[in-house]
């Protein structure tokens, strides 16, 4: 299959999926009797600079969450626990940063390392259960999500403080906070410093996956567990390692907000990013670049949703429905396109080879 055709097919899947999702949402709006034209004009409007920055901030954390999920997906491990991992890790980071055991940025660094370690450990539990006791990681991570929530509620009153209605960890000292980056000069919102982690993680993800032995073994295990085992991959160790890595990246998800905006972990900390990450990873086909586009799209939809109620009188929850529909469309369309691609390639191989054998036929005929 030519490079052009392969590329076209790779692009066709998300485009088709989005068209399908748009169609379904339009039908939903029509059935409910909402303002279809209003919905599309709001959703397709160009965002204000401050919205665009908020979008980028949102996209960066969605990207981290998406990569965390994708690391597992690439070897058929369904880490549904990114949600619990990032929240527990964010809490730990907030607590460590607030305790201020170390001065300045050393304190920040420690908090980041602790966040990754906590995320990794929480995921590693599920990994170890799967590898050594055969417990499905889907079940164990879902349970661990729930446990993480209760654990945070329990611990936060021990280490945190209550001001008014809000309970949270101690705010971190000024010197440990991470600055923001101004993108538009007149925008009141700025890009969180740690959003740049998304880029670092993305590059590392690509590099490890495609250029290292570990990445190859991970992909091989995902493509065919039996072939990987026969090729000398220690599948138990791969399961634990992959879950540790996935959890470590999940541990980063909450950090941009904590270090550049909230300065502590509190009860109002944003939940649901882990589940959104699963959808983002699916939409981005677990590919570093694909996930980036998916994260931007999801962030864009969420930001525009805020305007829906004001400008078109439509409840913004329709956008959450839209995001769900996108994921479903993606799963269906990708499978259809995959089958088409397999058939197209087989046909092409058959025709190339038969053309070759026809070219060789005259000599064969002469010999017999």
């Amino acid at each position, binding site marked *: *299959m030519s490079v052009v055709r392969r590329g076209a097919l790779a692009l066709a899947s998300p485009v088709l999926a989005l068209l399908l999702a748009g169609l379904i949402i339009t039908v939903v709006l029509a059935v409910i009797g909402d303002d279809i034209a209003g919905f599309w004009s709001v959703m397709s409007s160009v965002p204000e600079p401050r919205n665009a920055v908020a979008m980028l901030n949102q996209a960066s954390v969605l990207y981290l969450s998406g990569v965390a999920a994708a690391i597992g997906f690439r070897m058929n491990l369904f880490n549904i626990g990114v949600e619990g991992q990032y929240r527990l890790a964010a809490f730990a980071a907030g607590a460590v940063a607030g305790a201020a055991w170390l001065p300045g940025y050393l304190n920040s660094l420690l908090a980041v390392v602790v966040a990754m370690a906590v995320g990794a450990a929480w995921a590693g539990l599920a990994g170890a259960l799967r590898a050594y006791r055969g417990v499905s990681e889907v079940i164990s991570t879902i349970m661990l999500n729930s446990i993480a929530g209760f654990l945070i509620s329990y611990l936060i009153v021990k280490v945190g403080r209550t001001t008014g209605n809000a309970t949270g960890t101690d705010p971190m000292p000024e010197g440990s906070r991470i600055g923001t980056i101004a993108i538009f000069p007149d925008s009141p919102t700025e890009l969180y410093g740690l959003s740049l982690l998304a880029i670092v993680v993305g590059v590392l993800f690509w590099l490890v996956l495609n250029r*290292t032995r570990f990445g*190859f073994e991970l992909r*091989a295990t995902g493509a065919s567990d*039996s072939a990987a*085992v026969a090729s*000398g991959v220690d599948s138990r160790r791969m399961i634990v390692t992959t879950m540790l890595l996935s959890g470590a990246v999940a541990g980063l998800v909450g950090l941009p907000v904590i270090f550049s905006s909230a300065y502590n972990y509190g009860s109002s900390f944003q939940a649901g990013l882990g589940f959104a990450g699963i959808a983002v990873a699916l939409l981005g086909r677990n590919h570093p670049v694909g996930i980036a586009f998916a994260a931007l799209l999801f962030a864009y939809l969420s930001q525009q949703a805020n305007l829906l109620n004001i400008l078109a009188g439509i409840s913004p929850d329709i956008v959450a429905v839209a995001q769900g529909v996108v994921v479903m469309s993606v799963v269906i369309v990708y499978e259809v396109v995959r089958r088409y691609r*397999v058939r197209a390639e*087989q046909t092409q*191989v058959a025709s190339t080879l038969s053309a070759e054998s026809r070219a060789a036929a005259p000599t064969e005929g002469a010999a017999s």
Partner: protein
Amino acid sequence: MSSQVDTTPAAAAGTPAIELRGIGKRFPGVIANHDVDMTIRAGSIHAVVGENGAGKSTLMKILYGVQPPDDGTIAVNGETVTLSTTGDAIARGIGMVFQHFMLADNLSVLENVVLGAERLHGIGDAARERIQEISRQYGFDLDPDELVETLGVGERQRVEILKVLYRGASIIILDEPTAVLVPQEVDALFTNLRLLKAEGHTLIFISHKLDEVRAIADEITVVRRGTTVASVRPDEVTSRQLAELMVGSELPSPSTEESTVTDRVLLSVRDLEVLDAAGRPELSGISLDIHAGEVLGIAGVEGNGQTELVEAIIGMRRLSRGSVRLGDEDVTSWSTKRRRESGIGYIPEDRHRHGLLLDSPLWENRILGHQTRPPSVRGGWLSLRGARRDSTRIVEQYDVRTPGIDTTARALSGGNQQKFIVGREMSGDPRLLIASHPTRGVDVGAQAQIWRHIKDARREGLAVLLVSADLDELIGLSDTISVLLRGRLVGRFDPRAVTPQDLGSAMTGADDPTDEEAPA
């Protein structure tokens, strides 16, 4: 049943049971059928012969309604039909007995037979009576209430035939029915088939075993490269002539030249025991040595421990007792990766599950199993250039027919996939080559090439463990043949002196099974 068949006016008038004209099937990725013409007389045994991959299976799937043909016409009892589902075929009285049995072990014979055909005679006494009647009529000797898991291979096959008869088939396709049988069981099967013929059934017998075909068939159609090349009567041709029709001018034979066996032991297995999940031994008391330059063939009916033996040696199964030594080192506690690094090439029995990443390009498949070794990997980093260059070398050197190394493994035919695997496993200086059914499901050209590569490996001083169900392949390639029966090595034979019948007896335990070392 017999009344159904005999009174068919078409049969009386001498109309062929099946007439295929100009059948063609362009099937992505594998050799297509083209210009297939075949006439099958009613009430005869018609053999369809051809090498693995010649297109027999596709043709029979077309006839059984699994896949529709792209061109041509099918006539059943003189009437042109369209068979787009197996239901259509069954309605026309066509039944098929597959090579791999489709039986539920934990159900009785009765339950297996009525499954999916409950509407014919219910699931109770009427069905039981019908089954007993068929069983008596054709000498099947089957008890409807026996559990299938207690039945032997030959009996299971008769259950499969019974299933087809129960559904009212008068034209029965048997796909390589003798592949899973030992010679004595083959004789019993032939007795059954002759009875079926005497009752007016039409049998289509697919095989590539020529002596059997000549013994049982009334007519023989030869398929080569997807098309019918000849129709002959068994008394008109010799096996040799048939073989030449099948493979074209050049007849590959696995015969080995002069011995290259040295006295240097490369693989030494001692008192090996492997238990299944329930703690029952799957292998026990296995001891064997393979020397440099020696091919040790393992014969046995499938399921007697061949898979387990190979997986124990490669390190995929834990030993409960015994040791494995490779060269001077005891590798018993080594991981699969370490064993492969130390020089084991592995051609797995199931290449799709164990040998390839089907949706990855060939060059990535070059890395598989060699992910710690140059040229594909240096340190922890992949060398894409190294992997690609070496894949190109394998494609050229091992004659892998592919448009390029970026093609996914799935798109290649079985023979080309296997040639790529052989090329891969022969790179990186292996000392021991484990070849499990290396030519299963590959075309005849690839088969000859793979045989040649195994002979080359032997000549280069590798130790080769060859597991195969093809007795001719074993006899032709091995320096020594051991027989595996119920997880034990029960006999050791010299391939130059052994006959398929001797091996067959050892494989079924017709010899005294306690006689561990049968005279060579």
